[in-house]
C-alpha cells in the first residue's frame, strides 16, 4: 500500500521547526506552533496505527522509485505504535517545558530543536533503509547535542563534550558497519538486505557485521556500553532530560529490535546469546547504580539503563510472546520514564537541589505531586494494575518458558531494586519533617502537574486497557516473527 501519510510524521516537525526559527522573538507563537505541530503529528500517527491494523503495512516509495533502488518509508505496527507514543510523550514534555525552561532558553531556539529531535526520532522509526537510519540517527543526535549544551553551564559543557565525542565514535562505527554490510550484500534497503542475507545464509562474516551493529546500537541505547549515560542525562534542564529519557535510548532499542528480527535472525545461538548476556549485565549494573546514589538525577538515569537491559533481554529470547512483551514494555517505558523525569524535575526545582538527604516532607504542601510520583514509582517497578506489569509478566513468562530461568531471576531482582530506588526518592523527599517552608521553595512545581496527570492517566490506562493495547502489539509481534510480511509489503509495493 503506497500511502503519503507515512511521510507526514517526519515532515510536520521538520517544517514546524524551520518556521519556528523565524519566530525567535515571539515565544508564545513558538509554543502554539509546537503544540499544533506535535498534535498534528500525533493525529497522523494515530491514523497510521489504525490503517496498519485494518489494511496491513503502509509503505511509501519516496520519489516514486521502486523498492530496492529508492528510499522506502515503512510503517508497520512496530513503527506506527512507537511514533504515536513518541508524539504523545513529546506533547507532555512540551507542556512541562513551557513552565520550567525559562525565557533565556525559549529565545534561543529550544522549541525548534525539540521539533528537529522529533523529526529525527520519527524518521528513525519509519525508515526502511539502513543508511537513511544512520542519517536520521544523526538528525536526532545533533539536535540532542545542542539541547544538552544549551544554557552553557559548566556541568552542561563538560558532559556534552563527553556525550558528543562518544557519539561521534559510535556514528563512525555505524558508517563502517554499513560499509561492510554493503560490501557483503550490495544492498541498503532493509527488506532487500533481509532477502539477500537469507539467500546467502548468515555466515561468519555477516555474523561479525551483525555484532558490530549490536555494538553501535548498544552505545546509542545504553545497552551495557552505558557509561556515558548517567552523567549526560544529569546535566540538562529537567524538561530536556525528560524528553531524552523518553525518546533517545528508545531509538537505539528500536534499531536493535528491527535489525535482529528483520535482517540478522539466522544465527540466534551467537547474536542472541550475546544480546542476552549484555541485557543481563545491563540490568545488574543499572540496578546497582540506581541503588547506590543519593541524587535524584542519577537514580532516575540509572533507571533508564535498567529498562534497556530488560527490553533487550526480551528481544534476545526472541519468541513471539517475548517480542510482544518487549514492545509493550517499550511503550510503557517511554511514558513512564517521561513521567518520572518530569516529576523528579519538579522536585528538584522546588527544593533547589537534587541531593535526597536535603529534601524532606514535600507531601505537606505538594500532595498531588507526591501521589503522582507514587503512581509513577509503582508503574516503573511493575505493580499489577499499572502499565509496567503486563509487559514484565509477558517477558518473564516467555523467558522462563524458553529456559532462561537465571536471567528471569535477574530481571525480577532488578525490578525489586528499581522499586527500592524510586521508593527511596519518594520516602526521602515526600515523607518526614518539612524542612523547607512554603515560601522558601525555589519554584512552585505546579507546571509539572498537568503533564504529570496526563502521563499518569496514560500509565493507568495502559495497565487497565492492556487487552485493547495488546491487540495492536500482537500485530507488531506477528510481523517481527514473520519478516516475510515486511519484505512483501516493501518489495511488492507498486
Amino acid at each position: 500500500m503506497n500511502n503519503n501519510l507515512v511521510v507526514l510524521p517526519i515532515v510536520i516537525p521538520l517544517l514546524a521547526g524551520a518556521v519556528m526559527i523565524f519566530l525567535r522573538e515571539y515565544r508564545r507563537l513558538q509554543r502554539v506552533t509546537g503544540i499544533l505541530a506535535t498534535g498534528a503529528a500525533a493525529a497522523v500517527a494515530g491514523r497510521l496505527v489504525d490503517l496498519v491494523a485494518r489494511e496491513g503495512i503502509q509503505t511509501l516509495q519516496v520519489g516514486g522509485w521502486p523498492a530496492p533502488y529508492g528510499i522506502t518509508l515503512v510503517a508497520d505496527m512496530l513503527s506506527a505504535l512507537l511514533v504515536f507514543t513518541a508524539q504523545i510523550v513529546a506533547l507532555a514534555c512540551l507542556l512541562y517545558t513551557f513552565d520550567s525552561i525559562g525565557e533565556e532558553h525559549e529565545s534561543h531556539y529550544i522549541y525548534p530543536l525539540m521539533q528537529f529531535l522529533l523529526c529525527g526520532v520519527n524518521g528513525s522509526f519509519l525508515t526502511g533503509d539502513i543508511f537513511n537510519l544512520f542519517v536520521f540517527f544523526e538528525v536526532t543526535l545533533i539536535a540532542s547535542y545542542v539541547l544538552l549544551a544549551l544554557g552553557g553551564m559548566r556541568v552542561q559543557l563538560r558532559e556534552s563534550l563527553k556525550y558528543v565525542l562518544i557519539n561521534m565514535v559510535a556514528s563512525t562505527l555505524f558508517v563502517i558497519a554499513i560499509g561492510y554490510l554493503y560490501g557483503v550484500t550490495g544492498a541498503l534497503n532493509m527488506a532487500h538486505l533481509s532477502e539477500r542475507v537469507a539467500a546467502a545464509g548468515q555466515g561468519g562474516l555477516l555474523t561479525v557485521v551483525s555484532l558490530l551493529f549490536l555494538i553501535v546500537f548498544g552505545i546509542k541505547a545504553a545497552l551495557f556500553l552505558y557509561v556515558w549515560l548517567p552523567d549526560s542525562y544529569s546535566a540538562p534542564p529537567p524538561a530536556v532530560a525528560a524528553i531524552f529519557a523518553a525518546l533517545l535510548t528508545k531509538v537505539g532499542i528500536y534499531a536493535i529490535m528491527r535489525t535482529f528480527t528483520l535482517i540478522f535472525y539466522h544465527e540466534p545461538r551467537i547474536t542472541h546469546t550475546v544480546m542476552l548476556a549484555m541485557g543481563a549485565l545491563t540490568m545488574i549494573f543499572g540496578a546497582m547504580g540506581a541503588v547506590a546514589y543519593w541524587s535524584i538525577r542519577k537514580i532516575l538515569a540509572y533507571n533508564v539503563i535498567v529498562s534497556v537491559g530488560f527490553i533487550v533481554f526480551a528481544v534476545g529470547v526472541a519468541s513471539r510472546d517475548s517480542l510482544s512483551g518487549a514492545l509493550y514494555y517499550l511503550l510503557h517505558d517511554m511514558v513512564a520514564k517521561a513521567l518520572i523525569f518530569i516529576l523528579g524535575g519538579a522536585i528538584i526545582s522546588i527544593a533547589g537541589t537534587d541531593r535526597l538527604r536535603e529534601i524532606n516532607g514535600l507531601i505537606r504542601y505538594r500532595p498531588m505531586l507526591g501521589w503522582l510520583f507514587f503512581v509513577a514509582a509503582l508503574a516503573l517497578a511493575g505493580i499489577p494494575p499499572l502499565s509496567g506489569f503486563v509487559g514484565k509478566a509477558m517477558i518473564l513468562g516467555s523467558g522462563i518458558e524458553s529456559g532462561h530461568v537465571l536471567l528471569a531471576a535477574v530481571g525480577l531482582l532488578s525490578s525489586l531494586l528499581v522499586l527500592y530506588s524510586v521508593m527511596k526518592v519518594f520516602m526521602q523527599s515526600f515523607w518526614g519533617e518539612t524542612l523547607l517552608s512554603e515560601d522558601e521553595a525555589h519554584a512552585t512545581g505546579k507546571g509539572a502537574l498537568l503533564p504529570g496527570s496526563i502521563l499518569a492517566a496514560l500509565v493507568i490506562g495502559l495497565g487497565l486497557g492492556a487487552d485493547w493495547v495488546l491487540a495492536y502489539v500482537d500485530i507488531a509481534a506477528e510481523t517481527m516473527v514473520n519478516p516475510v510480511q515486511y519484505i512483501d509489503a516493501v518489495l511488492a509495493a507498486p
Partner: protein
Amino acid sequence: MEAFIIVIAGILVTIGVYMLLSKQLLRIILGTALLTHAAHLTLMAVGGLKKGAPPLLDEAATKYTDPIPQALILTSIVISFALTAFVLVLGYRAYVRIRFEDMQQLKGYEDE
C-alpha cells in the same frame, strides 16, 4: 588495490584510536577526524574498486564505478564536518568557561 586501501584505513584507525585516548581535547577531536577518514576509505574500498569511468552518463563508457558508496560518503562527510565544527566550538566554550588543561580535569562531582 582494496587490500592496500584497507591497510591504509587500518593505520588511520590505529592513529585515531591512539589520539582519542590522549589527554588533550584537540588531539581527541583530531582523532575523531582521522577515524571518519578511515570510515570513508573503508566505505569506498568494500564496495570494490573496479576500474571504470566516473559515474557520469555522457562519458559514453561501457563500465562505470559504483556510484552508491560515493553518495554515502558524500553524505557522511557533510555530517562529520558539521559535528567537527560543533565539537570544536563546544571545546572552545568549555575551555573558556572551565579553563581545563587536560581531560582529567573534566571529572564531575564537585558542587555545581
